[in-house]
């Protein structure tokens, strides 16, 4: 029997409650991704629309003022690429 479970049922909190606040930070949504956003900094006007629309709230500004996702959380949904007014973001296959 393959092991797929996270933990033994006896170790689950009552009613599968989550006892540790803020734990969503640890949920690696990045491994759901098959496509990833790629930013062309030449085209980027630093408008931050991608960061505002990101459903995972994982795009943040760096020291140069460019917006890049945290790939631990980026699900590759493509909303940022869709919303970018300058077509500075393209979705490429994961691993390319």
């Amino acid at each position: 029997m393959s092991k797929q479970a996270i933990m033994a049922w006896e170790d689950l909190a009552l009613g599968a409650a989550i006892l540790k606040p803020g734990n969503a930070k640890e949920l690696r949504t990045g491994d759901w991704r098959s496509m990833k956003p790629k930013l062309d900094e030449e085209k980027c006007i630093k408008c931050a629309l991608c960061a505002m629309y990101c459903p995972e709230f994982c795009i943040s500004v760096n020291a140069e003022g460019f917006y890049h996702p945290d790939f631990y959380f980026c699900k590759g949904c493509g909303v940022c690429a869709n919303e970018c007014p300058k077509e500075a973001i393209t979705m490429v296959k994961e691993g390319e």
Partner: protein
Amino acid sequence: MGKRVGLEVSLAVAEAVKLANVDVVSAYPITPQTHIVEELSIYVANGELDAEFIPVESEHSAMSAALGAATAGARVYTATASQGLALMHEILFIVSGMRMPLVMTVANRALSAPISIWNDHGDIMAERDIGWVQIFAENGQEALDLTLCAFKIAEDKRVLLPMIVNIDGFTLSHVIEPVIIPDHAEVDAFLPPYTPVLRLDTENPVTFGPVGVPEMYTEARKQLEQAIIGSKPVVEEVLDGFGAAFDRHYKLVEQNGKPGAKTRFVTMGSLGETCMTAVDELVAEGQDAGQTRIRLWRPFPEEEFLAACAGAERLVVIDRALSPGAVCGPVASELKSLFYGRPDAPEIVNLVAGLGGRDVTVREFKEMFAMAVSGKLSGNYTMWGVESHAS
């Protein structure tokens, strides 16, 4: 000692809820449950009961509000029936999945269509797999007593599951019976204040009802399954404790008639009392008749049922619900699976009777007995009393 009064059973249930010092009552009125929550709203309005009464716009909201209040750590009560129970269906799984020990009375009633406000068990049989502890009362005193026990069972740290007390609509809910109302002090001694294990608390945040990914959902269901299986000895313990405190004794499975009778009726709910009279008469006439009454329905008391039916050659199972297209009624179907492969398995004769408030009389039980003994009720099940050109 409590006092003995003549009281409508709905009001007796409301008395029990008041005596249990509930914190929150969330309710939507639906026949035949209405009188219970109406009475509770009066208690809250006149200050007899220090609780929040949440009037809602549907049973879906009634159960949702009850769930919310339970997560806040309150002792919560609600009641429903029939279509209202069906409307709660979705939330019922969430309450048990989140292990919230709230208590609900279901005044059992048939489901539409056609619209019927009268009693059968069609409503609760559609809720067999929700993970709630379920018990059936046969009369008014039981309805009151089992409601008190329900809070103690549900809130036990070994259980922490919601519980339904089933009372037959009208047959119990609207009938005036002599009922002993216990003293508040006696109830307080029996039922301690509720202290939740987990509750919503800004100082100590928890998340209830999160996403259960495939990697843990199975384990969560296992936890629920173990909790409900493990509730059986607690139900027994609480009922015994109630008996010791109030001198009214209840078992998970009851029996009467001739001990070790070869032909035994199996009943659940108020029809058991009519059947009891029939069985007494049959025994007086020299017949080999007995009766087994299922009080605890979930978890099903397997060992107790098998012990109660030891030596039986034929069980005449009365189902007060039809499972259209199934091989037999729901209770019979479970009993067939219980006995499957056992060398001592009795013949199981199934009657679907008393649908939508149809009377089943003492004479009819005796008729069923005669037909069952002479093999005239063979086959998977018989719908009892159907008017037909074929008969």
